[in-house]
């Protein structure tokens, strides 16, 4: 499997996936236009760690393309568009965000042909009183029969922030399977009670729950997991300094 790593130093405009690929993306403080085309029958796994980005990212998936995105970021205002252009194209997209500033994260999923599938997990921890928005729209066209389209959106509020989720399913077809959920709030009190009843302090509970929310469901091997945990540790500490 081909392994590609791109960061701020690379020319990012077009990435064309013509063989099964692992793509590592590491971006900081940038506003880039990035197109990622996944050709017929190709598998792409993305491991993305970003800080302070406002990128425009477009994924185009051809027939039978399979994509998994494991994206963890801090202060993210990216606009991501996913075009499922080919039959049986499939994407699992995990976007986990640590938020400290005013940010809007937008993602649009377009099911343009039949038998396409998307599962989108957008989870954010908003640490401050700043504003965070998830704008999530899935568009299923009339031609796209027997599609599966799922969204799970969650914002955990740690600092009385202004939080919004706009989850949209725009469906022009009866023969599809679609679900969406949205939650804004604190960690649940019964969960905190259970953890504290085993001796964990409030701070320990918060840290484990935040880490669990941010890394949960993602497809990380041991090496990636270590890098993602380091990212959370580094940015969690930044949050404490800001308090």
């Amino acid at each position, binding site marked *: 499997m081909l392994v590609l790593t791109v960061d701020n130093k690379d020319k990012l405009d077009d990435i064309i996936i013509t063989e099964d690929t692992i793509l590592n993306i590491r971006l900081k403080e940038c506003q880039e236009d990035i197109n990622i085309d996944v050709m017929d029958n190709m598998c792409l796994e993305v491991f993305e760690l970003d800080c302070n980005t406002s990128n425009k990212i477009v994924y185009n998936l051809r027939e039978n393309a399979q994509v998994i995105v494991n994206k963890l970021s801090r202060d993210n205002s990216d606009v991501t568009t996913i075009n499922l252009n080919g039959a049986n194209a499939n994407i699992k997209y995990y976007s986990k965000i640590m938020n400290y500033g005013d940010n809007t994260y937008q993602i649009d999923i377009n099911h343009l042909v039949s038998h396409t599938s998307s599962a989108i997990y957008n989870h954010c921890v908003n640490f401050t009183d700043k504003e965070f928005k998830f704008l999530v729209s899935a568009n299923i066209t009339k031609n796209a029969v027997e599609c599966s389209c799922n969204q799970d959106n969650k914002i955990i509020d740690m600092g009385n922030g202004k939080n919004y989720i706009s989850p949209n399913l725009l469906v022009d077809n009866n023969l599809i399977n679609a679900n969406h959920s949205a939650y804004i709030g604190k960690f649940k*009190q*019964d*969960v905190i*009670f*259970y*953890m*504290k*009843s*085993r*001796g*964990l*302090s*409030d701070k*320990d509970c918060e840290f*484990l*729950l935040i*880490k*669990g*929310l*941010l*890394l*949960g*469901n993602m497809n990380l091997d041991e090496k990636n997991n270590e890098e993602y945990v380091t990212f959370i540790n580094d940015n969690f500490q930044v949050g404490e300094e800001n308090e």
Partner: protein
Amino acid sequence: MLKIEDLSVKVADHNILKEFNLSIADGEVHAIMGPNGTGKSTLSKVIMGSHEYEILSGKIIFNDEDISALDVDERSRKGIFLAMQTPISIEGVTNSEFLRTALNARQSEPIALFDFIKTMESNMKDLDMKNDIVHKAINEGSSGGERKKNEVLQIKVLKPSFIILDEVDSGLDVDSLRIVCENINKYRQENPNTSILIITHYSRILEYIKPDYVHMMVDGKIVKTGDYNFAFEIDKSGYSELVNE
């Protein structure tokens, strides 16, 4: 070990515990039985320090210290453990990191990874649990029986001195109940000063973990106390008949 003195507790506008008294000495096993809605689970949560309830009066003394004002985690680190009736699942938090954090919270030096793995493996084997559970999120996708075994695993790893078993027998099949109770008895043999408070509707669990005292609780207070045989008297006669005696 534990002394509850004239404890009155309310939630919303309902008085649930009413001048409740109970004294449990080191190494004793007590059982509380009672009809639904009488305050048994409230009692367990109040001992653990839940903020859901308002203490109107009374004290909870643990090892000669008034713990009424202590937070939940402080009570736990002093040695109190509540095995819950319905253990919840926690997304993304693995059993391994949860228990290791809990263990480290109660000792001055963090436990070495190798020692922790050895402790977990040995205890999971005793409980007939699969090894991969350590890497799974707490209770996610687990059956009722697996959740109860996980509670006992936590007891064996964290080594509390006072254990509350809140309807630990509910949702357990015969084999799982036997394994759970055998492990609790083994823990008692290894830690003879450990005291246990069993909250249950049925005498079945008491055949495995034999109590020194059985209390009948009705309407927020203990109305009658007996020895082990009292549990079977309750089973035979029912609560209402015994209350009216």
